[in-house]
């Protein structure tokens, strides 16, 4: 059960976007449409799982002082693979994600999990953790994107919901993104605090 806990924590208790607040750059920039969000989420999850496996495999032989450059090279390899694959097989998605695909390499979640977790844990656990984190990141991204796309361009997954509703452009732009994630984290804290206080009172 404990091992399964590693996977679950990434989704809720230690959700990378809402709780640990890592990987904010792509989250805010790319969540203008749910389609982009799913694309970015899955790309990040692939890189996360792939690099975590290799890093936990190779963790024993790398001396501590040169640890960061080695981990980053492994992560960069997976990011470039995703980049090439996307250009070849999903050109539209790769164009809409723009420079944020190569930016997965500096995404704090990937290196954060690599350093915090997989450089100290066995392979199996770090795969689970990576999957949990990847999924947690994706569903947070999709949640933000659905709000922003619905309000910002009056559509969801590309289908315009209503033609005459004049969408406030503000939600698509930078301020809208920051506002959405701010309110969501606030809500998240509220739920966590209430569930924690109910646990202690109960």
């Amino acid at each position: 059960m404990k091992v399964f806990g590693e996977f679950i924590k990434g989704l809720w208790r230690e959700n990378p976007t809402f709780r640990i607040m890592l990987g904010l750059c792509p989250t805010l920039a790319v969540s203008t449409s749910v389609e982009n969000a799913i694309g970015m989420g899955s790309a990040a999850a692939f890189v996360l799982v792939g690099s975590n496996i290799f890093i936990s495999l190779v963790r024993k032989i790398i001396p501590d002082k040169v640890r960061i450059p080695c981990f980053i090279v492994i992560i960069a390899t997976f990011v470039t693979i995703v980049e090439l694959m996307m250009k070849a097989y999903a050109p539209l998605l790769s164009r809409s994600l723009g420079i944020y695909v190569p930016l997965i390499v500096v995404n704090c979640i990937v290196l954060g999990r690599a350093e915090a977790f997989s450089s100290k844990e066995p392979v199996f656990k770090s795969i689970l953790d990576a999957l949990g984190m990847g999924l947690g990141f994706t569903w947070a991204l999709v949640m933000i994107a659905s709000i922003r796309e619905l309000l910002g361009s009056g559509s969801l997954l590309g289908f315009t919901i209503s033609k005459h509703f004049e969408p406030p452009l503000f939600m698509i732009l930078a301020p809208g993104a920051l506002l959405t994630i701010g309110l969501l984290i606030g809500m998240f804290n509220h739920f966590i605090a209430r569930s924690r206080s109910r646990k202690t009172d109960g």
Partner: protein
Amino acid sequence: MMTQILIPVVTMAALGLTFGAGLAYALKIFGIEVDPKTALIITKLPGANCGACGKAGCAGFADALVKGEAVPSGCPVTNSEARKAIAEILGIEDTLKLKQIAAVRCSGGNKAKDKYVYHGIKSCRAASLVFGGYKACAFGCLGFGDCVEVCPFDAITMGDDGLPHVDPERCTACGNCVKACPKGLFTLIAEKNVYYVACSSTDPGGAKAKVCSASCIACKKCEKACPVSAIKVDANLSRFDYQKCQNIGKCFEVCPTKVIKKR
């Protein structure tokens, strides 16, 4: 086809070699030792340097831990085993909050003049509804002891100088007094910080002196005296920066109205 693969591999390998060797060379020439305890803690910390703890990366957080300015749970990214390990190294139990104690930011009480004679309900909250309380100083303590009643550990007793006094042993920093006081005079300050400013009025110095003999008249003597510039007068009131304060006590000696109190 083969050369298409050979060229990148050779160039990148060469790049890797130069950077690896370069780093090792730099380490040999410029290497210095870090004090073992911090180094040990750094290995336990995630090393992601994400800044979520507010400190500058894990090394910064480790220093803060060793200096006692931070608590293992300050780093949201580590899991519970790592936090227990760090707590062992530091030799403290993994308390969630750094030990804090409540402090009253007012030293007026009987020393503060009254605006009018008040015969209403004997409670600070009720009194402060009537034109902000009967004291001439709008920020001052009304002395009806709402805090005393609300404190579950009766760590607060009302002194004969008309001011509440906090017993450091009993106070568990539960924060009830902070919520209860209508003037917001109570704050929770880390136990290691010995000094605090017992005044919260931001009126100009002269006006304060007229209504209360024990108020911070913003004379800035403390600001000039403090060697580590941990205290600064901002909006007519001197405020501590507890990240810099090292309990030297110069400000305490130099304060003319004795508003900076020692716990």
